[in-house]
Each structure stands twice: as structure tokens, then as C-alpha cells.
């Protein structure tokens, strides 16, 4: 990092150490913790703050991600009958179990927030909602369903990688939205989806790379 950039970064990093941008209160020593007069209130206050802060972006994210996950499960369900390659079957099993559980989490979250889970799960999952990042179209799903063996392996990985990248994009969009993911539950869920799916993407990429090598 260039020296000037590094100093700027250090300035940001230890607030006590340097001046502040124009127009803001002087930094001085690190601010004392705001201790509310009645600590017992803080849990209720935090809960009230959360309720006031309910973000429509959170709701949309959960609704869309449910449909997104549902399609991943539709794709994974195709695996047992279309390939015998154990690595693909293992990846599909893990994706299926993980995403089914995450759908249950999302359903619970939506219910607790008084929002209907998307009624059109099935519709969305079968390509009716190609607006979401990474989702397969009807034609792509059909192509996957028609494939077998090595060709299925390759298509499954390519499509699922793209699908997962779509989920990662949805998380990035969520965090780029003001007021979104301000509760621990949303924050935790979104970052877990991000971390897990990125790990799976690279696993799938590595597997795809080995598929490209002709087997002896």
C-alpha cells in the first residue's frame, strides 16, 4: 500500500490517533461507551429499534432467496439418476441438505415477521423467475434434465456455480442497501450463505477443472 494511503488507513483504524474529516466532531480520545441509564432497558430498546428498522430489503432478500434455493434443490434432485460420479453426488447431497435447512430458516423468519413465504416457489424454481441472479431458464433446466453421465456432470457444475454466484451477488446487493441486514439474524444468515456458497463454488470449480482432463 502506498505510504499516504497507508497513513490514511491507519488514521481510520485508530480513531484517537488523528484528526477527522471536516464537518465532524473532533475525535479526541476514543469515545466513552454510551451507558444507558437503565441497562435493563437496552434489550427491549434494541428489540424496538429492530422492529422500527425492519427493512423491506431484508424481506425481499428472504423471499427471493427462498425461490433461489428451491431451484438449487430441483437441480440437486436430478443428480442421483443422472450420474454415478461420487464427487458430484456428494456435492449435490450437501447442497440439498444445506439449502433445505436454510429454506426452513427463511420460512421461519418470514413467518415471525408476518410475511407470506412466496407462494410461487414451484413456479420460480422452474424458471418462471429468471430475474434473479444465476437462476436457470426453463430451457437450461430442460437441457440439464436431458443430460447424462459426463455431460451432466459438466453442465451441473457449470450451472450450479453460476447459481451460487447469483446467491453471492444477492448478498452483496443486500449489504449495498441502506438499512438492510441490521439485525443479528439477518446479518448472520446472509454472511453464512455468502461464506458457504463461496466455499462450494471453489470446490465445484476445482472439480470442474479435473473433469476437463481426459481420463486415462
Amino acid at each position, binding site marked *: 500500500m502506498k505510504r499516504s494511503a497507508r497513513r490514511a*488507513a491507519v488514521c481510520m483504524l*485508530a480513531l484517537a490517533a488523528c484528526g477527522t474529516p471536516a464537518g465532524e466532531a473532533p475525535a479526541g480520545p476514543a469515545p466513552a461507551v454510551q451507558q*444507558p441509564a437503565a441497562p435493563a432497558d437496552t434489550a427491549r430498546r*434494541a*428489540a424496538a429499534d429492530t422492529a422500527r428498522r425492519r427493512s423491506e430489503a431484508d424481506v425481499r432478500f428472504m423471499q427471493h432467496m427462498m425461490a433461489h434455493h428451491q431451484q438449487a434443490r430441483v437441480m440437486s434432485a436430478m443428480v442421483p439418476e443422472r450420474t454415478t460420479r461420487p464427487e458430484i453426488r456428494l456435492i449435490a447431497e450437501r447442497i440439498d441438505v444445506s439449502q433445505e435447512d436454510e429454506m426452513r430458516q427463511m420460512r421461519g423468519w418470514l413467518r415471525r415477521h408476518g410475511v407470506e413465504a412466496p407462494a410461487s416457489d414451484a413456479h420460480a424454481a422452474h424458471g418462471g423467475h429468471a430475474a434473479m441472479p444465476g437462476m436457470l431458464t426453463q430451457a437450461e433446466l430442460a437441457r440439464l434434465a436431458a443430460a447424462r453421465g459426463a455431460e451432466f456432470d459438466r453442465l451441473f457444475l457449470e450451472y450450479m456455480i453460476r447459481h451460487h454466484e447469483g446467491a453471492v451477488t444477492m448478498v452483496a446487493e443486500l449489504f449495498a442497501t441502506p438499512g438492510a441486514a441490521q439485525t443479528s*439474524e439477518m*446479518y448472520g444468515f446472509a454472511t453464512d450463505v455468502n461464506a*458457504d456458497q463461496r466455499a462450494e463454488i471453489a470446490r465445484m470449480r*476445482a472439480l470442474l477443472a479435473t473433469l476437463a482432463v481426459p481420463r486415462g
Partner: protein
Amino acid sequence: MAALLLGAVPAAAQAPDPRIGLRAGWMDAGEAARNMALVSHTPRPAGFIDPQDMNNFGLINADLAFHGNTTFMGGFHGIQIYDMTDVRRPRLRGTIVCPGGQGDVSVHRNLLFMSVEETRGRVDCGTAGVRDTVSAERFRGVRIYDISNLDSPRQVATVQTCRGSHTHTLVPDPRDSSHVYIYVSGTAPVRPGAELAGCSGARPEQDPNTSLFRIEVIRVPLANPQQARIVSMPRIFADAAGNIAGLWRGGRHGEGTQETAETDMCHDITVYPEMGLAAGACSGNGIVLDIRDPANPRRIAEATDPNFAYWHSANFSNDGRKVIFTDEWGGGVAPRCRASDRPQWGANAIFNLTAQRRLQLASYYKLPVAQTDTENCVAHNGSLVPVPGRDIMVQAWYQGGISVFDFTNPAKPVEIAFFDRGPMSTTEVVVGGYWSAYWYNGHIYGSEIGRGLDVFELRPSEHLTQNEIDAARLVREETFNPQLQTRIVWPASFVVARAYLDQLKRSDGLPRARSTAVTSALDRAERLSGAARRTALNTLAAQLTRDAAGSRDAARVRMLASTVRDIAAGRRQASAAD
């Protein structure tokens, strides 16, 4: 799917596991325990619990740190400080309200450290969150408190980092006690550069200064903690050619390791400075670091495992020859201990760390009983139970409860004690259970996410004798930060000698008659004093050394002989290597 049920059940132990069928409830769930007993239970204090909402994730308990008689419970709403002078009657000393998870804590003398990663974290610790995507009010990083006066902690520094701090690890500098280091593990999305200069979430091909693929090292001058700052951001995933994403190319380790995952971050790092080593659970890999230069850790070994979804945490055995990594498949909020879940998924992997610094998988250990589908359950945080001569770990499994297991033989881990409660709910997964379970100064402490602070003691069984428990209780630390391992040494004491002797009985390391004779000899020597005691003990030690030659457990006989000799010599500490 019953065939996937975990662990071998010996024919003699066919009684149903008491952890099955426990009554559900928040504060009144059924309990089951074996070879350990609950000594105290302290619910979360007012301000840290919302009695109307058991699902309130923003208030949950997380990790623990210990100093003297004080236990610090970190969590998503701040920190609770407990006086544990009487572990049966813990006393809440105070709290620090500072929302923004996860609240991972460490303590070093008068300083308390806390990790913050959530986007609702505020510099001023307020409860209102931060709405803007770029804001000077946001805090994500490591907070530092001065706790010279425990009744009135003062935040003295806020060190912002690009990905926040999911966890952190305190690393003393063995060469200079005027400062300590903090290794920051950030796993969350990267902040915009507009919010924190220098941050970049781009891939390394696009931006060689990316905030991915590194950890941050903070240096904290103890006399001036407000000067704490990041001093290095080592690229610990780089390969020899300097590719900073060096661990994701895969294929370098041969057949079966093709599935190297995208490791661009560490979830948790456990350091063992006396060994100059650290073990990092880093997303798609388990790695071992050389930390002899603590500001510049260097990767020296790595492992991949196709059964691991998400490398989460690591523990060394006391001799540093074994490393246990955990896989937190499901992120801790999913039920992963169902009968239908694979026993190698969401489990521990026990590795041997060879002299050439290679990690070799020995076995998996998973909670050996199924949990319901409304109980979040997966391997989580734990620490060593300091029984001399054995490798034993106590570990949290969320709503799977606490499991204590022996991994002395890394290929055959065995559960030796447990505690469990029924589910928080039978109708939905309400995240609960133990975030951490650690041994500290004679007791097991569990941070229960929704229910509070639990303290336990171990009880003897065929797996663990009273002498072995007593020997473990002799180990006293002034401070304990679980991700900072220090070499356990035992006092040269009769209790330790008797523990080894019990182990020799268990292993048939001595003929029965000989074992009885040694027991009597120890008892006799203990009743003597001065020169008479010394002579008796040295005679016994010499005999034991001869016994070792013919023993099937020779190393342990020699450890016993060595301890006896140390008692004779009046040494404070047993010099026997474990």
C-alpha cells in the same frame, strides 16, 4: 438411515442414551448428564434477555474468557462480567452494553478485547444500528476496554478493520512483554473503501491489495492501548510463487485433495506461542502457521478434507503433535446431528502433525448420539482438560450439549462424559445450546446461547478416576483465553503420580501385584517426611524404571517414575513430558 448413527456402541452398553427424548423448554428443559454434574446455572441478566422472544438473536451469548476469579461472557449485545469466587454462586459484577456481534472476547491483565463484525455495530455502542452503507458511525473491528476498574470498564480504542472481526486471537510476544498482538479473523463481506480507506473486496487478479486472502495483525502497546493499530496484514494463503490466492488452485497435494476450496479468510486461529505454532481453521483449509515472529505469521502446512464444509476452529494437543479441527457445517444454526446426517460432516477431524510439519488425518469425532431436527447442533468451541498423560477435550455442540472425549489414541476417540438439555422448541429450530465449553481452573464452563452460564465438575467413572480429575484440578492458570494455548505442566505431586498409576491399571501397564505394591509404596512414602520420604521415593522410582523395560505401556511407567523422582527432589513441577 439408522446405520449412520454415530460411534460404535459396545455390546455391553445397549441402554438408550439418556440424551434421547429430553423434555423441551427454554428455561425448564429436561437434562441428562453422565460423568459430569451441573454445579451452577446463571440465566442471562436483565438487559441481555428478552423474555418475550426466545428467538432474539441479537442478545445471544457467545464466547468466554477468564482472568482470576472473573469470567467474561461475550455476546451479541455486549459483555457480562461474572465474579466466580464461588462457582456455585456466580455473581454478576457488571455488564458492558455494546451491540454488534459476535462479541468474541479476550483478556490480558487490565485490557479486555471484543470482536465486532455486524453492520449494526456503532463506534458509540448505541442500539440504533447504522442505516447508511457508508458511515463514520459504524464500527467493525476490535474494541479495547480498560478494565483496571472492573466496575467501570472504559473503551479506550476502536480498531476498525475491512471485514470486521468475526473472532480474534490474543498473541503475546515472547520476546517483549510491553505489547501484545491480536490476530483478526474477518469472514464477513468487505466494507466499501469509502467507509474505510484501503478496503477492497475485489479478487486478487483485479486488485493485488484486496482485503481478501489475509488476516490483520494488531499491535497493542500495553502502556498506551489507545495507540493500538494494524501493523501487518499477512497473506497467509499465498503459495511459493507469490499468488495470494495460493490455496485455491488445488491439485498440489495429489489424489483426493482436488477439492481445495476457496480459502480467502480464517474463521478462527488458535496460537500456541511456546511451540511457535498456530493452527488456523480457514474456510476451505486447515492450516498451520509458524508464529515465532508473531507480527509476521507464515504458513507451513495445510490440509484439505472433502468432508469439511467449513473449517471453523482448531485445538492442539498439549505436546503439539495432534491438531483437532472442527467443521461448522450449517453455521451453527442448523440441526446437523440428526440420525440422517453423515458422521463425518459437521464433526471434528483429528490430525497428527508430524515432525516434518505435515497434517495427517487420523479420524473423525462427532457427538455420538443423534439430536432432534429442531436442535441446532454441530462441532463448536472447546479446550483441553488437563489430565496428565492423556489428551482429553471438552467441547460445545450447541443444542447437542457438551461432550468430553479422549483422543489420546487419535485414531480412536472415545466419549467419556456429557451433559445435554432438551430442545428449546419442538416445533422450530430456536438457536440455542452451548457456544463454548472450556475447562478453567478445575471446572467446566459452558456459555449457553439462550439459557446462560453453566458451570460443571467432572465425576469419576471407568473412563476417568478421581485421581485423574484431581490431577487436572491441580492445574491453575491466572488467565485463560481459549484460542491461546499454553503448555500445561503439572506439579510434582502424589496426586499426579496416582493418576499415572490409575492409567497403568487401565492399560495393564503393570502386573496387578506390582500395581498394588506401587500404590502401597506411594501411600507409605507420603506418610514419611524429609530424608526418609526422599529415600523411599527414589527407591520406588528406580524400581519403576526397571518395570518400564517389560511394560506394554513403558512410556507411562517412565512418566510415573519421573514424577516420583521429582516429588523426591522437591521440584515444584513434574518434568515428565506427556
